[in-house]
């Protein structure tokens, strides 16, 4: 996004000296805003102004990378407060904590490595392992970091506010760009020096938003993750909102991803808190649990919140079973638009019908849209009939199509060799349709 004339004008020297060839500084600012002049035509502009104008044209939330190679996690580049305005770009990184005084660190990491889930045909997993210096002992911390690094499938977060312990841990893991967590007002210079030395991302924690902004400005380092210091969920929500809102208004110190900690001792509360953080702008959420029952709902929520609202959501195009369909069960044809599929599936289920549903791949658009766009054709339906294996599962050769596309029936019957029954226009009519018309 370009700079506005007012933003540029405020950085100019306001001498109206005409050295740039324009009659006034204001006119020059207007030329710059419309791209008809360049800043170096003004000989009097200060370095601070150049810097301010440069950074003002950067994206509102910086892109920050944690880890290297295939373990790398990217955060930031966000541009909106609400996903319906455009989309959320980089899904919240989920980090699971391992304490350096745990008895079985390798075992816990193995459990974390297994937090990989198949959701609607895609693989989703956690992203980070957070090694926590719970022992307070530097050597023990470094040893734990080594163990975790050797066995974890994910990039690391190193959690200690003790600069000596961090230094030892970085000797082990520094070259893999782990997240240093982190710097606060007390250890700031030492932690910043370590981050710069290893060129690793750094968490900056303030006692509140004001201190956080001051520390970021002092840092002069761009690979940052923000922590407002809040731990109660209501305060975290307020701070997360402020940080995102101010970043979008181009308040530079808050133009970085954030880290949050869902560490409520009640595991159910911790998951609910983490859900709030995922919905409300957290770059990373750190959990203490590796129980798949705790992590699965968060993975699902993250997947849902970070889908692109402008693209229709599709279900996987394959044969689905409702109930326990036998060889005489009806076969319904529909499209793979999730809204369409779940309407049909819900109505079939509500009618206590055991059946097969065959959602044809229409790139996730509805029956009538797909028909109008030439994506829901007798050819495509026949192709899916032949490839999905439904013919081996049923003893009949009858197919039910949506009433809205009754015109397809003749051609489809000819092409497929199946008898085509035209179902009701609305899926709500399926149960009574089956009662009256299905007697295979």
């Amino acid at each position: 996004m370009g700079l506005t004339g007012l933003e540029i004008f405020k950085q100019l020297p306001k001498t109206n000296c005409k050295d740039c060839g324009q009659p006034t500084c204001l006119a020059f600012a207007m030329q710059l805003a419309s791209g008809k002049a360049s800043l170096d035509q003004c000989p009097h502009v200060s370095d601070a102004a150049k810097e301010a104008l440069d950074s003002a044209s950067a994206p509102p939330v910086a892109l920050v990378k944690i880890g290297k190679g295939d373990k790398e996690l990217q955060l930031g580049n966000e541009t909106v407060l609400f996903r319906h305005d455009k989309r959320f770009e980089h899904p919240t990184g989920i980090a699971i904590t391992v304490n350096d005084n745990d008895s079985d660190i390798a075992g816990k990491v193995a459990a974390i490595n297994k937090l990989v889930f198949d959701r609607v045909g895609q693989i989703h997993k956690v992203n980070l392992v957070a090694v926590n210096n719970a022992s307070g002992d530097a050597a023990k911390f470094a040893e734990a970091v080594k163990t975790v690094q050797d066995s974890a499938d994910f990039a690391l977060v190193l959690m200690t506010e003790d600069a000596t312990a961090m230094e030892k841990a970085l000797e082990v893991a520094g070259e893999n760009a782990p997240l240093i967590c982190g710097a606060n007002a007390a250890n700031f210079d030492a932690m910043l020096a370590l981050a710069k030395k290893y060129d690793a991302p750094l968490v900056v924690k303030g006692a509140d938003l004001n201190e956080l902004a001051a520390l970021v400005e002092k840092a002069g380092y761009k690979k940052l993750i923000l922590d407002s210091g809040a731990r109660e969920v209501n305060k975290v929500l307020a701070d997360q909102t402020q940080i995102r809102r101010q970043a979008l208004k181009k308040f530079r110190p808050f133009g970085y991803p954030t880290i949050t900690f869902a560490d409520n001792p009640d595991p159910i509360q911790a998951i609910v808190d983490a859900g709030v953080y995922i919905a409300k702008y957290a770059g990373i959420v750190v959990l203490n649990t590796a129980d798949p029952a705790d992590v699965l709902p968060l993975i699902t929520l993250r997947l849902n919140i970070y889908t692109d609202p402008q693209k229709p959501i599709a279900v996987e195009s394959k044969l689905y079973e409702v109930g326990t369909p036998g060889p005489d069960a009806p076969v319904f044809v529909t499209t793979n638009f999730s809204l369409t599929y779940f309407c049909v599936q819900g109505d079939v289920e509500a009618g206590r019908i055991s059946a097969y549903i065959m959602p044809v791949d229409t790139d996730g658009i509805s029956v009538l849209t797909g028909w109008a766009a030439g994506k829901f054709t007798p050819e495509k339906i026949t192709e899916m009939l032949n490839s999905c294996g439904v013919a081996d599962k049923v003893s009949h050769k009858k197919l039910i199509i949506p009433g809205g596309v009754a015109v397809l029936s003749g051609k489809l019957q000819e092409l497929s060799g199946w008898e085509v029954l035209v179902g009701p226009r609305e899926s709500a009519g399926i149960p009574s349709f089956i009662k009256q018309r299905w007697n295979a």
Partner: protein
Amino acid sequence: MILIGERINGMFKDIREAIQNKDPEPVRYWARRQYEKCAAYLDINTGPTVEKDDQPAVMEWLVKTAQEAAPLPCCIDSTNPDAIEAGLKVHQGKAMINSTTADQWKMDIYIPMAAKYNAAIIGLAMNEKGVPKSAADRIALAMEIVVNCDMNGVPMEDLYIDPLMLPCNVAQEHGVEVLETLRQIKTLADPAPRTTMGLSNSSQRCTNRHLINRTFLIMSMACGLDSAIADVDDDELLDAVAAANILLNKEIYCDSFLKTFRAR
């Protein structure tokens, strides 16, 4: 779309006579009627027939009378700074000043006044040299007003830039320049200043005035117009604005959108 009802203006005969006779009834009538027709502001103008020295007292009376009759803020419309300040002093709520030009001496009077009374202000993209023809010249003048508002702490949300539409029968080439100006104003600052327009200007002494007014209003809305001083008694104009709000995704569509637009 913020509609500013244009009707309480001494240019109209009934208002002129109401001022002469100190008869509040026509002012009350138009305040209520424009309120019912979903005006967000009432433009208040003494008209040119009132003596300059009398304008402050008349403005004060008009603002008080209008606000007693309808719960709306006023858009205090005068070329006389004393009249504007007299209106602001008795005004309830957040007023709008109509208007300043980009002349420095005028901005030095009106913009601090807007800051002092926490009022919105309309800035005309013109100066003593007259109405500029090209969009680029209009934008340069608008920028002067933007910078002066910024220096005086008037937030951009309270500044309404008027790109100055002229009658299409005698200044036809200005229309496209006004539309281009509206587009570019949104790039001057972030948040952007708002925009407004004296809509009835576009059709002065033309035939089919209502048609010309509403057509230009809709075209302007598509270019980012936020507000207009207009005849809110024109139902076809309101219908067109309601439809444009839907098409610009400013209101969520429903079948009764004409009705919900009018509901307040």
